[in-house]
């Protein structure tokens, strides 16, 4: 409006409905705290994606299964914490296998053609091991995993994957749901019937079966696949809600008035009605982010998730399965707690958002 030189140059910019909603949200203490918590996680995700933190998460800096620092004193006397070097040698699959092979060869009195090579490898490993293990820490802030990787860094790196998958798939799902819902609700008649049939058939397929089917069709493991799986299966709730909103709003007088002044269908749908239902979209988006973060964890846990070279909260929990048997609970605790904090904060924020956006049109 800067180009306009009109009699009224100085005017107070009135708060629109969005500004008023923000004002209401700011007055909500729980909402603001949870927003801060969620924002912290997003910043962490961005920083991690940009390579500012947790870039070297895959580096094995600690002893394997190094306990959390604050827990060390309790663990050490019990001998549960592995004294780094020798246990390391036992645990290392390569070394263990080589050792096993060696014994077998002796027993059967067959000359192992690889014996010399293995001896060489072993002596090299023995030479290298002390220097390497000397640098390894026997405790880490949140402990270490099987390979001695820092759980804290894994959690940070894992949040990058999990939150990004949650966000991106929620955007895909909400976009699909909104678009289809808007079309169904606005045009009604056979368009609505058709989309409703589609919706009904879609929702009648068991969820996991659907996910497996899509996974099979895409036939590729990776983040994109998970995003597509969740996005393509998650639009149904949003569709129903947005369809209902459009059914309601297209009857409203302001939409009729827009029709009367000659606004086209598309214009009425997206310029006039959409801003008035966008609060529903926003709330749906944040609900789905939470749901999809959890879904990613479940999918990775079931093994449909991210590939082995990528870490996510889900893959961490998957690893924790076998660790729990050994009593190494810290990876599970770290991933589980972080996820719980984010999901709780985000859910509370969603609640506050819904209250703030509740459009009591005066």
């Amino acid at each position, binding site marked *: *409006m800067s*180009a*306009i030189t*009109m*009699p*009224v140059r100085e*005017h*107070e*910019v*009135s*708060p*629109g*409905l969005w500004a008023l909603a923000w004002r209401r949200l700011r*007055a909500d203490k729980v909402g603001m705290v949870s927003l801060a918590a969620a924002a912290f996680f997003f910043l962490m995700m961005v920083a991690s994606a940009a390579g500012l933190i947790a870039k070297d998460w895959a580096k094995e800096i600690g002893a394997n299964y190094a306990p959390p620092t604050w827990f060390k004193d309790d663990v050490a006397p019990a001998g549960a914490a592995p004294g780094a070097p020798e246990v390391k040698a036992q645990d290392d699959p390569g070394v263990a296998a080589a050792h096993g092979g060696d014994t077998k060869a002796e027993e059967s009195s067959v000359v192992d053609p690889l014996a010399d090579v293995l001896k060489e490898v072993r002596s090299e490993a023995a030479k290298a091991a002390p220097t390497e293990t000397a640098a390894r820490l026997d405790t880490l802030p949140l402990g270490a995993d099987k390979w001695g990787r820092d759980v804290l860094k894994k959690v940070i790196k894992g949040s990058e994957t999990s939150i990004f998958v949650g966000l991106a798939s929620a955007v895909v799902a909400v976009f699909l749901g909104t678009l289809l819902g808007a079309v169904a609700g606005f045009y009604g008649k056979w368009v609505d019937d058709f989309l409703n049939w589609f919706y009904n058939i879609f929702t009648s397929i068991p969820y996991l079966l659907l996910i497996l089917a899509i996974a099979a069709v895409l036939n590729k493991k990776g983040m994109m696949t998970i995003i597509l799986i969740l996005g393509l299966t998650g639009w149904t709730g949003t569709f129903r809600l947005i369809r209902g909103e459009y059914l309601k709003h297209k009857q*409203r*007088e*302001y939409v*009729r*008035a*827009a*029709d*009367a*002044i*000659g*606004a086209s269908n598309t*214009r009425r749908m997206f310029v*006039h009605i959409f*801003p*008035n239902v966008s609060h529903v979209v926003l709330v749906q988006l944040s609900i789905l982010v939470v749901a999809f973060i959890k879904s990613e964890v479940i999918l990775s846990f079931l093994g449909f998730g991210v590939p082995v070279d990528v870490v996510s909260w889900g893959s961490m929990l998957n690893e924790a399965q076998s660790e729990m048997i050994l009593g190494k609970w810290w990876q599970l605790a770290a991933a589980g707690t972080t996820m719980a904090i984010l999901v709780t904060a985000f859910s509370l924020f969603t609640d506050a958002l819904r209250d703030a956006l509740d*459009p009591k*049109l*005066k």
Partner: protein
Amino acid sequence: MKIESAPKPFVAGTTALVSIRNLRVNFRVDRHTAFEAVKGISFDIPVNSTVALVGESGSGKSVTSLSILGLLPKENSSVLPGSEAIYAGRNLVEMSQRELRDLRGKEISMIFQEPMSSLNPVFSVGFQLAETLRIHMGMSQAAAYARGIELLREVGIPDPEKSIDKYPHQMSGGQQQRVMIAMAIACEPKLLIADEPTTALDVTIQKQILDLIRELQRKHQMSVLFITHDLAVVGEVADYVVVMRNGEIREQGPAAQIFESPRDAYTQALLQCRPQLHRRAKKLPVIDDFMSGHPVSYADAPERKRGLTGSEPIILDVENLSKSFYSREGFFGKREFKAVDNVSFRLAKGKTLGLVGESGSGKTTVGLTLMRLHDATGGQALFEGKDILSLSAKEFMDYKRRIQIIFQNPYASLNPRFTVGHIVTEPMRIHGIGSSEQDRTERAFELLSKVGLPEVSFYKYPHEFSGGQRQRIAIARCLTMKPDILICDESVSALDVSVQAQVLNLLQDLQDEYRMSYIFISHDLAVVKYISDQVMVMNEGRIVEMANSDDIYLNPQHPYTQKLLSSIPKGWEGAHPRVAQ
């Protein structure tokens, strides 16, 4: 609490049933701001009489009645200490919820504006009636039912033995309100609070309900607190009148005094702003005239001549317009409902055609079909020789801007997410009016000042405006397209009396200036009479009568028109003809 002595009644020679003294009610807007909805008012409700609480929206009249019954929402409102509403020696505003519950429905009962939402749709009316009787009178189920039938007969429900088992949706709006009244009087209350009981009803039903309330009041010798915005209704029912504005009492006294010699400027304004049936002032007096100390009497204002001579050019010729809606019946069948049935009329250039009828008469459908917001089932509408109903959507686009509509509810017809500037310039952008954005903005400023809004409005959002101002924005939006025909669909019905007068004056000024033709749709016969040259009366989708406005009011031909006109509340003068002489 102890009351030292009963307060002195306001009107000599009466005994007060309820005495309200210094009632103050606060509403919390948000954490820090509160707003005083009722600012220390005092009045009496005398025994065996009807007190009318009159005021416009925001005057605090409903809040007053709700606080008497302790029905105000606790979360955001509070009755301030020092307030008194004394009934039978006890202060109602200080009673506990339990004590109040015993009183409510038994000694003080209430009827609301919307009978359709006040009855529970999943229970039969008999069940709901009997519930009141069982709770308060301790009657058995059988006795309660028997008494229920009696009550339904008393409030004039036909065939009460059968009707008692009906569900609310099986009854008409008027019958539902009768059931509400039956529930309210079931325990023979001493005070009946009626909050706008007839506002949602058609004028013929309104008359029946008013007659019923008046009759019951006399028969049971109860007191009635009648809350309304309509002074004509007050004139028919009230013994005493309390006029409220912005939470304060402007004037109170016996009805005769208020209507014949009002002292307060605001009361005078309210009495003069409403169009009256026997005269047509050139310009309606507005509230500012009175508040600024320059009262204009309706009777003294110059008159405007209305009506057609028959030689005016015709701008729109509608022939056999029909619109049916279909509802599914059974598996394959559908039932036709004729909302508009073979309606033909001609609209003269620069004149106003009034379209009156009760709800369901099809008057709004006529407007929407002409705008092509509904597809017509049959008939044609010739505009400059072209049938606008059969044009393709693209061809119609050129005509669309020339026929415009102003809707009833100014709160719903403006997009809440747009600024007023956006709302007013949008049609120009769609139709390519104005050479540049700057030109369009300039035009918007011009039109905003034409409809009497300050220029800053351009940057504001609709929620910052009052109802009347919003209707002005809607009018400005239509004017951007310079339409030839403006359809006003109940455009002033949702507005307060004083604002109604301003908007009617504005519409008239605009017609005088631009020579627009109006189709003025309303259920309000007085307003239609005032603004129209010709009046068309519709009932059940058909035109029952059409004539020049003065002719139809002086000499209605069709029995339906006669019934409609005789139902208009006559106000004080109508109800008390000897005083008027």
